[in-house]
């Protein structure tokens, strides 16, 4: 018995020595945290990589991140070129955010995304961001009053996703919707605004090409049509004396998309929204504790329906099926009918109705 275990442990020890090729000493590895892509002349890419420094080295260099920039045709070529400049082994396993410049996104992102799918170390939970302006400039700027840039970007996005102020779009959702012929992908937009970074809307894609964007004011109305919301806040400002300004919190919404055929045989979509929220701020001449509450709910329902319809109109005009109406229409057709359909054309001219029903859950601490 003793001889057996001894023999086995000797064999194991012998094997352990040859396992040294896959060592991962943390201080010697450069974990790329953020990657930015800009378009250069000649179809090349300007690739910026941000690699956090460990505290020891950071205190020596007075920098928190190592920024590496180069011009290359592909991201892995850039990584190989940049590894000649750094003392650490560059790996992509901790990639948190990828920034694409709008000009690059307009050309189509699919060929740049090959390595994001192929490399097993890159997680599908990586955030995908389209930036107005240069990704390099955003990554190399220092934002006083904010954490170090790479962390600032990552935390800003994660917070927005968690608070459901904007739909959570990671690589997984982008690829899934890109491959789906009944839906077009979307992405979050970021821009530099003075000394801060700002969430700048939602980028609308047709297949993999960036077409246009929705401004930040429209994000809420798009979001409630895109998914069921469990939390969030939004503000409405109008000229009407009943509703000069009103802010809701703790938003809970349900959406339902129904497809029907009208008399002409054309498809009609009906987006039904049920939203409820609590009032946080109200500037207007109504008393919320009386039957005025129902009046306000009616005004809000109409307002939300109008705004949502306007956004749907914009999506249709740009032929970006970001809400996935195509998926619902596909459910009503046979395979042959769906294949013979020019969905983009039908979508652009389709009659899409939005009906929102708003309910005020509570009106806060103030009784009026």
């Amino acid at each position: 018995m003793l001889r057996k275990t001894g023999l086995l442990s000797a064999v194991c020890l012998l094997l352990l020595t040859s396992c040294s090729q896959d060592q991962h000493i943390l201080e010697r590895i450069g974990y790329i945290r953020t990657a930015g892509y800009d378009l250069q002349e000649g179809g090349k890419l300007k690739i910026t990589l941000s690699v956090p420094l460990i505290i020891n080295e950071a205190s020596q260099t007075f920098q928190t991140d190592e920024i590496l920039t180069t011009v290359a045709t592909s991201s892995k070529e850039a990584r190989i070129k940049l590894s000649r400049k750094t003392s650490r082994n560059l790996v992509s396993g901790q990639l948190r955010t990828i920034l694409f410049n709008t000009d690059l996104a307009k050309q189509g992102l699919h060929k740049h995304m090959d390595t994001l799918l192929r490399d097993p170390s890159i997680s599908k939970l990586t955030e995908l961001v389209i930036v107005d302006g240069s990704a390099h400039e955003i990554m190399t700027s220092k934002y006083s009053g904010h954490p170090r840039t790479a962390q600032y970007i990552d935390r800003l996005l994660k917070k927005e996703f968690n608070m459901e102020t904007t739909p959570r779009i990671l690589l997984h959702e982008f690829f899934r919707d890109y491959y789906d012929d009944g839906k077009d992908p979307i992405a979050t937009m970021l821009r530099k605004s003075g000394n801060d970074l700002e969430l700048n809307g939602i980028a609308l894609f047709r297949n993999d090409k960036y077409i246009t964007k929705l401004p930040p004011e429209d994000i809420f109305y798009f979001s409630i049509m895109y998914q069921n919301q469990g939390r969030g806040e939004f503000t409405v400002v109008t000229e009407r004396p009943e509703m000069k300004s009103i802010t809701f919190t703790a938003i809970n919404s349900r959406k339902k998309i129904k497809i029907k055929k009208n008399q002409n045989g054309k498809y009609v979509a009906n987006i039904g929204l049920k939203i409820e929220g609590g009032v946080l701020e109200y500037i207007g001449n109504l008393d919320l504790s009386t039957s005025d509450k129902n009046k306000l709910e009616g005004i809000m329902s109409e307002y939300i329906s109008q705004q949502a319809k306007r956004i749907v109109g914009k999506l249709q005009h740009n032929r970006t099926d970001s809400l996935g109406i195509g998926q619902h229409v596909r459910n009503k057709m046979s395979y042959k009918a769906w294949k013979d359909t020019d969905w983009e054309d039908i979508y652009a001219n389709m009659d899409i109705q939005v009906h929102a029903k708003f309910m005020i859950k509570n009106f806060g601490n103030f009784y009026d």
Partner: protein
Amino acid sequence: MSQEKLNRFFIALMIHSTQTGVVIFTLPRIIATHFGANGWVALIIMFFLVSLNIMLINSVYRLGKGQSVFAILKSGLPRFLLIPIYLVLGSGLAMVGCLVVKQYVLIYQMLIFPQTPDMLLKLVIDILVFIFVTKGIYTMSKANFFFLFLLFLMIPFSIVFIQNMDLSRMTPFLFQEGNDLGKGIISMYGAFMGYELSIFLFPYAEKGKKWLKYIHLGNGLTLFIYLLVTILCFGFFNYKELVHLSFPLLDMFGYLRFPFVERIQNFLYSFFLLSIIFTSGMYYWCSQSVFTAMIPKLHWKWALFFLIGITYFIAYIPKSLIIVEKWFGFLSYFQLGVAIGLPLLALLALLLKKGRQAHA
């Protein structure tokens, strides 16, 4: 001689464990490629075909009155015919056991240890398999219960994935945009392979016919797990994206995020080592039982040692995942032969024996 008998429920778990393996990682992609939209329905059809085959094996047990398959063959067929059959059978089973480990190791190397030679990882796992099998079939079956318990702990994760599923993503179409249906059927049948080893368990199971139903239970458990994984993948991704994902289950696991650790997909993949050790161990155990039946004087542990050793060196030949999958394609035909041919051969032997007795 009173011998410990294999528990019926453990036999079901053993059959299930032998059937599932690395294929669970590639199955959604194979189904999406060859069967197209909602191709998971084909799994149910395959299940019924496999059930028919299991009934064939059960009939051998019934007509042979619980004898071991080697005893049946020996009493019916002449020795000079049996020797080459046993040789092919034993070698083929050992090769399957070897390639199962090789495939797991190549994927493991791609994910976690890119610079380490895969044969080194295979050597470590082969030592584990040897230690596992030398404990005997009863201990193997008890250990398997523990292995499956650990693997089934992962099933609650499906609740997270169901939240991300969207039924409209699954489309109302059936079997559209698949190609190469023949290859798809062979691959899917290969995914269910493992039940044919139940023919070697005859002398270790209890007397009576009740335990035969438990082979069906094992097969049903396999169907349940395959359906769960495939339907989740079809809803989580869509069938067009699945075609491009090498290991959809790993990508799905990659979506899990715990507060204390970011990505556990590689760790979860390591759990499947338990399933691989059992599958490989079972095939090696059956292989050594064939050789021991052929050469009674050979001690079974030595037979096992030589089988694992020789197949280890043969495993040097396929160097990439694609070549291993090609070899598996050939071996699927062999496995099909064992699954259908061996019971038929046994029935033939029984018929010949009866014929001889009637004339005697």
